[in-house]
């Protein structure tokens, strides 16, 4: 922390105004921003300067007699209509051409599928690898095909200066070309509910070899069921709402110390007791609103995983939850 003085905020990567320039768009956006900023400063100083001058010069005071009739002046009126118009046209044109670059991906792109849900991101790579953080190679054009499972989201990478909404029922695209290796923030910029502000992720820009190594490794899920279950837990969005620490509530019930216990559930409006066993967990994943845990009814907006997970994967998740029955983090997984 630095005494609340914003000029000290600029670290070696960032200017006062902007995060690092990590994509090909950044240069244009920043230049354009500065150009418009200087235009604005010019007009602002003009307006406020004149305002202060007039207030001081023509203030009511003894011995000063102001005029009360306006002198009409066509010349200045035309002047201050035409000049702003020309400037506005320039700003529009430059902005539009920059925009066209930002929405027109080149022919050769690396396509990554993105799934957004409350409140996590899943990235799926061409070789089948799945991750919750985005990994991309440097200096390659990347195209994200984005879908949402529930509500509106918006993938925003400040360092890349680009964002696009993710709309359920549609596929939206976002392309960029990183020019700087490092780790940058991903935000959700479209309000999506309770944990909107925690729907954060990171994008890691590797060199090409590093990316290849990473993606090859990420495509191999563990084979041991508990570890596989955790692997899926981290990548299928479970982690956003269910914790693995006993009694820690994020949105839904914690996975820890739950297997084998008896809980009150609501079936429709019917209250009853239910043992948390394999069958219950399986049903709750495939049809989350069938039997709602009492105390978590309002949180039960979980989407069904019917068709998204096969039986082996379901089984792995059940095993993972089972392994957490004593609350201790399961051994042998990382």
């Amino acid at each position: 922390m630095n005494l609340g003085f914003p000029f000290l905020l600029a670290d070696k990567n960032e200017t006062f105004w902007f995060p690092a320039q990590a994509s090909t768009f950044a240069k244009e956006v920043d230049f354009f921003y500065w150009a418009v900023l200087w235009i604005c400063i010019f007009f602002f100083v003009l307006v406020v300067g004149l305002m202060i001058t007039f207030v001081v010069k023509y203030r009511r005071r003894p011995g000063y007699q102001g005029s009360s009739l306006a002198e009409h002046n066509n010349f200045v009126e035309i002047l201050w209509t035409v000049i702003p118009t020309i400037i506005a046209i320039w700003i529009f044109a430059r902005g539009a051409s920059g925009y066209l670059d930002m929405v027109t991906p080149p022919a050769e792109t690396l396509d990554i599928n993105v799934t957004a849900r409350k409140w996590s991101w899943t990235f799926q790579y061409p070789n089948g690898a799945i991750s919750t953080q985005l990994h991309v190679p440097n200096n390659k054009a990347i195209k994200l095909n984005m879908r949402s499972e529930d509500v509106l989201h918006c993938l925003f990478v400040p360092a890349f200066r680009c964002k696009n909404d993710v709309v359920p029922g549609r596929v939206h695209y976002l392309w960029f070309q990183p020019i700087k290796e490092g780790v940058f923030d991903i935000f959700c910029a479209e309000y999506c509910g309770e944990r909107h502000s925690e729907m954060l992720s990171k994008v890691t820009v590797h060199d090409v070899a590093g990316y290849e190594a990473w993606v090859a490794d990420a495509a191999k899920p563990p084979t041991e069921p508990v570890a596989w279950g955790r692997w899926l837990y981290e990548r299928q969005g479970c982690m956003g709402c269910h914790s693995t620490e006993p009694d820690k509530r994020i949105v839904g019930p914690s996975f820890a110390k739950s297997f084998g216990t008896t809980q009150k559930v609501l079936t429709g409006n019917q209250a009853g007791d239910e043992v948390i066993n394999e069958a219950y967990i399986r049903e709750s994943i495939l049809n989350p609103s069938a039997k709602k845990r009492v105390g978590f009814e309002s949180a039960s907006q979980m989407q069904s995983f019917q068709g998204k997970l096969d039986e082996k994967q379901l089984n792995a998740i059940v095993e993972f939850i089972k392994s957490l029955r004593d609350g201790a983090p399961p051994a042998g997984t990382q």
Partner: protein
Amino acid sequence: MSVVAKNAEASHAADAHEGDYLTHSRGFLSWALTLDHKRIGIMYLIGVMTSFLVGGILALMIRAELLTPTQLFLTNKQFNQVFTLHGAIMVFLFIIPSVPAALGNFLVPLMLGAKDVAFPRLNLCSFYLWVVGLIFFIACLLITGLDTGWTFYTPYSTTTEGPVAWATMGAFILGFSSIFTGLNFIVTINTMRPPGMTWFKMPLFLWATYSTAIIQVLATPVLGITLLLLTAERLFQIGIFDPRWNGDPVAFQHFFWFYSHPAVYIMILPAMGIISELMSVHSHKTIFGYTLIAYSSVAIALFGFLVWGHHMFTSGMADVTTIVFSALTFSVSIPSAIKVFNWLATMYKGTVQLTTPMCYALNFLFLFTIGGLTGLFLGALSADRHLHDTYFVVAHFHYVMMGGTLVAFVGGIFHWWPKMVGKMYNELWGQISCLFVFIGFNLTFLPQFVMGTRGMPRRYARYLPEFQDLHIMSSTGAFILGFGLFIALGVLIHSLMRGRKAPRNPWGGATLEWHCSSPPPHYNFASAPTVNEPYDYTPLAYHDEEHGWEYHQPNVRPTPSQSHPVIAKS
């Protein structure tokens, strides 16, 4: 001071039996069932100020919570509810009715030299619709759980829990309140102008109100049907906006912004009207470029209908549509720029008096210039790609809505306060309040521009620690701003209790409302007053003993129907 107060009370008592509109009749029902536009205006004024208080407290809660990156005292859910209600209350209950319904109701017939608006009962009806809408929102506040954001974007709003249907029905009802007010003003201004008041002899506030009324009448019904469909979506899942049934959430955004962008001009245009009046009267100089200002109001109103798409630059519209909307967006910036230059030129060679209303008008000019100019970044597509849905947007629209409309509204209240209640207020404290508002406002929202460019998204309950310093600055500013507004409120309440009796014309205004006594009699004018130029100050002269301005030749001024003002000797 006490002598002044006694005199004021005495003169007030002397007035009472002659009956200005405040004392014309007494009792709760004489207010609740009144058809008098002035009383309805006052009731609106109290109502919108109360709403502002509630919305403002919610705003301070947001700013307090954002002092730390982690939870301070609001959970995520509560934070979402607080910002939703802050937005909804400020937009639907405060800003939209503030100038048109509160000040407009009071002033439109007076400025026209008419006895009332065209449909007084419809006018009362729209006030009560506003009250019903208020009740719906209070219900939301009490039930809690409305967490959709004031924009009610689907499908979040159709799936979340909480009283969404209550809020949308509330906004629906408020929409009709707004439509009826607008309709009333259009008809009033069209049909009830006195002989001699041509369109181009109308005060600019009326031009602004008229343009606003056009937007209210043309845009609000679309919001009405959108909210009705949304309510149906909530209650029956009709699927029009819900992807589960093949509906399109982006369609909702189009529907919503088709109203809500023109609504931005419902908010700012009347404020511009106020500034035109304030600048001219307190510079004691004819407004510069009357025709251009009048036309630019209408131009803004019409262009305002064509630019709704700029709220959706990242929503996935076709590229051509996006570019066209960007171009149209810039077209609306020109009339606004023209107005700013005209206001400046109005001061040139005038006699500027730094009264409280003028301080607020200059404050407006400063803040609105920033608000307008930062709009250029957001209208430009490539920059918007980065800035959309960040704090930059938040700061931009607060500079326009709050720095523009609210500041103009407060300035307008101080300007017409003597006319409304017949009391003067303490100038020094009025100016001090303006200073606090100025400092507090800029401290609150300037850092938010920087947060925005650095990538801080809006509507975040938690944030990365790197933004904390800027958030602390912003929150500090918010409390200073709140303090400034409380001083302003205190000045007004003090004036109500101990203010000096106001003269007929304390500022030297030449529009017709300054021709009747302060406060005006029940029936404003006995016969249509003689209309002169609204910004011709040459026949006015300051009378020291009255602390007010009078016409040189008494016959120029029309005789009000009731009494001459009792002149306070202090």
